């Protein structure tokens, strides 16, 4: 109750100070260096015109930001604009009345952003079934491999030849261990990197119904032969201390930074932090794959955040939101954001702009992420994963994987259990959102957007 009262207070104060300019409240999850970059962008927008003023508020982690925004929205005091991570996408999409689609906000505000300008894998993830943007993709990343070049040199390995496939890993780690590296390989975001990306990277289904993009009746099917093999291999590496589990989020970064682990799979946006804190020479490379799987590597999966417009504000305010979104979506802004942060350029134009400026000649590592995403055009299996209650499903996967690393559960059983437990949640989410479906939402969406 108390936080709600505080919210009301803060808002009352905020409203009091805004007299001439219309304020646009924007809640985000960008801390540290990323938050500073974001604020600089916002300031430029505020200085570019006089009618609107965007006020940002850092609400903590992605999870916290979403929680706070939902709670405020329930009380009718939500922000105009909120940054939501990819896991929350289905949650934001399901109740249509809570969110104002970005395409609608833009067209009513007299602005235009073409969904086709975005990278295919990005646009399709945040679009409805007719290909219209529901949210503005903003900070998108994808996992890549980071490796300690100094450790490679010490181990007598070629620092320009990081392992390309998973099969090349043991040999490399063996050499590294002989040279005194204690942990070999670790990862951040285990569910995202080890399961979700592995299915997309090998063009396989994570869930039915196009990984949930095709409808709420999706079923988790990630307990495949490939995945069991992958997890079983990692579990044997864990026993041999070739692979070290660090935690459910970005704890692996610290291990890599300490020089403990020489190989790390992490989001491309980890680059900023690694570059700032690493006391050694490190390199970036493409995410490893299995070369005996046909069609691999396909393309990797996106993660990160998009900007969602919440319902319940006045038309004049939405005009300001539209202006701000259009400002952020400009190619030169996108390019700058990409170069400064390590997120991928979300539009082709921003990518071209960056490439032509010669940026990648100086920083070749920063191109891997975008190349990975563009490697092949998205297929039914790889357009993205959008599931109800995905936060909880991620947690289940994390839990079951931890049992594997601990040696208390065989890989196949853990994956089967994870899928089964997750499916219970999916059925529940489906029932919740179908039973009282809003009139404008068709009960079932059978057709999907065909992309070329």
């Amino acid at each position, binding site marked *: *109750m108390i936080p709600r009262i505080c919210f009301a207070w803060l808002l009352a104060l905020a409203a009091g100070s805004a007299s001439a300019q219309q304020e646009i409240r924007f809640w985000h999850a960008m801390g540290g260096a990323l938050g500073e970059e974001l604020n600089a962008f916002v300031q430029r927008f505020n200085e570019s015109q006089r009618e609107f003023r965007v006020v940002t508020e850092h609400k903590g982690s992605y*999870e916290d930001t*979403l*929680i706070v925004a*939902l709670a405020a*929205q*329930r009380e009718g005091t939500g922000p105009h604009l909120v940054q939501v991570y990819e896991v929350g996408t289905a*949650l934001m999409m*399901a*109740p249509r*009345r*809570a969110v104002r689609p970005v395409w609608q906000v833009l067209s009513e505000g007299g602005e235009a952003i073409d969904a086709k300008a975005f990278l295919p894998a990005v646009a399709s993830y945040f679009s409805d079934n007719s290909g219209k943007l529901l949210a503005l993709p903003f900070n998108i990343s994808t996992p890549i491999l980071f490796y300690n070049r100094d450790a490679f040199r010490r181990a007598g390995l070629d620092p320009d030849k990081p392992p390309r496939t998973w099969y090349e890993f043991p040999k490399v780690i063996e050499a590294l261990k002989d040279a005194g590296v204690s942990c070999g390989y670790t990862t951040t975001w285990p569910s995202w990197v080890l399961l979700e990306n592995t299915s997309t990277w090998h063009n396989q289904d994570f869930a039915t119904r196009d990984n949930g993009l095709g409808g709420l009746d999706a079923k988790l099917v990630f307990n495949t032969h490939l995945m069991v093999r992958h997890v079983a291999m990692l579990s044997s590496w*864990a026993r041999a201390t070739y692979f070290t*589990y*660090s*935690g*459910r989020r970005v*704890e692996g970064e*610290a*291990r890599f930074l*300490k020089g*403990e682990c020489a190989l790390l799979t992490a989001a491309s946006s980890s680059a900023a932090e690694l570059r700032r804190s690493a006391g050694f020479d490190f390199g970036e490379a493409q995410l490893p794959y299995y070369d005996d799987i046909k069609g691999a590597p396909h393309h990797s999966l996106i993660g990160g955040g998009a900007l969602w417009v919440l319902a319940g504000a006045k038309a004049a305010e939405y005009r300001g939101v539209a202006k701000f979104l259009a400002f952020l979506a400009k190619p030169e802004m996108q390019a700058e954001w990409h170069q400064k942060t390590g997120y991928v350029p979300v539009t082709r134009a921003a990518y071209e702009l960056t490439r032509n400026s010669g940026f990648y000649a100086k920083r070749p590592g920063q191109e891997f992420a975008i190349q990975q995403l563009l490697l092949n055009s998205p297929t039914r299996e790889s357009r993205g994963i959008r599931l109800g*209650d995905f*936060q*909880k499903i991620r*947690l289940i996967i*994390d*839990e*079951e994987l*931890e*049992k594997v*690393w*601990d040696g*208390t559960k065989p890989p196949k059983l853990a994956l089967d259990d994870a899928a089964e*437990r997750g499916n*219970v949640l999916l059925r*529940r989410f489906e029932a*919740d*959102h179908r*039973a*009282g479906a*809003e009139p404008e939402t068709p009960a079932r969406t059978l057709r999907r957007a065909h992309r070329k």
Partner: protein
Amino acid sequence: MEKRVVFRSAWLPYALVAPQIAITLVFFFWPAAQAVWYSLHLQDAFGLKVQFVGLANFATLFKDSNYLASFKVTALFSVLVAFFGIAISLLLATMADRVLRGAMAYKTLLIWPYAVAPAVAGVLWAFIFAPSIGILTYILKGWGVDWNWIIKGDQAMLLVVIAAVWKQISYNFLFFLAGLQSIPKSLIEAAAIDGASPFRRFWTIVFPLLSPTTFFLLVVNIVYAFFDTFGVIDATTQGGPGQSTNILVYKVYHDGVKAADLGGSSAQSVILMFIVIVLTVAQFRFIERKVQY
């Protein structure tokens, strides 16, 4: 011997307890009633759509084997926390009671951790035991112990128990010390003259006389382990690895706040409320009989 205060005014006693009653109503009864209401409904994350589902939330919970597993974890956790919390502080209190010089300094130091917030206590111990940078991890490694609570469930449990106990010792210590100091010295001296060993004196005289305190602390510590240890868990293991430290109250938080499942989470808190009521009643009915006031 009745020690009742009699008010002459009819309304004054009510006026005096009114603030406390008001606080209890607003901060305990109202949220509890809300929890019951939410537990019977299903709603989406934005609160746009609310439907009455009866006991469906409860049915889902009891079909979930992981929820049932969480009971076991909670039972183990609270027994460990209450037992060690009470045993260690009793030991410390008896020691501190015997110290003559510098007693004040010892007591202050022992009471100190109580001022630390649970989350801070959790972070503190998490640092000390951190798998790759912790001081104790380093020492343990020297002894050949593979300490890694990030994947080892029993070690994670040990970590949260240590943090929770450490935080609660001060509180228990205070009560035990007060209890010890109210035991007449003559009783102990008489026993000593009769030739009872210190050990025997403790078990036949001191401990029975402390039993009201111990009983009170047992109730308080169980409730503490059930509810207040949330901060310790959230700051360290967050219920993992696997679900080895996923105690009921943490699950309530996770499902309700992080996963936005208000109905399921409220159903859990209603069950939790019920458990604590039953436990407390049981403690007063059955254990209190054996307590000698």
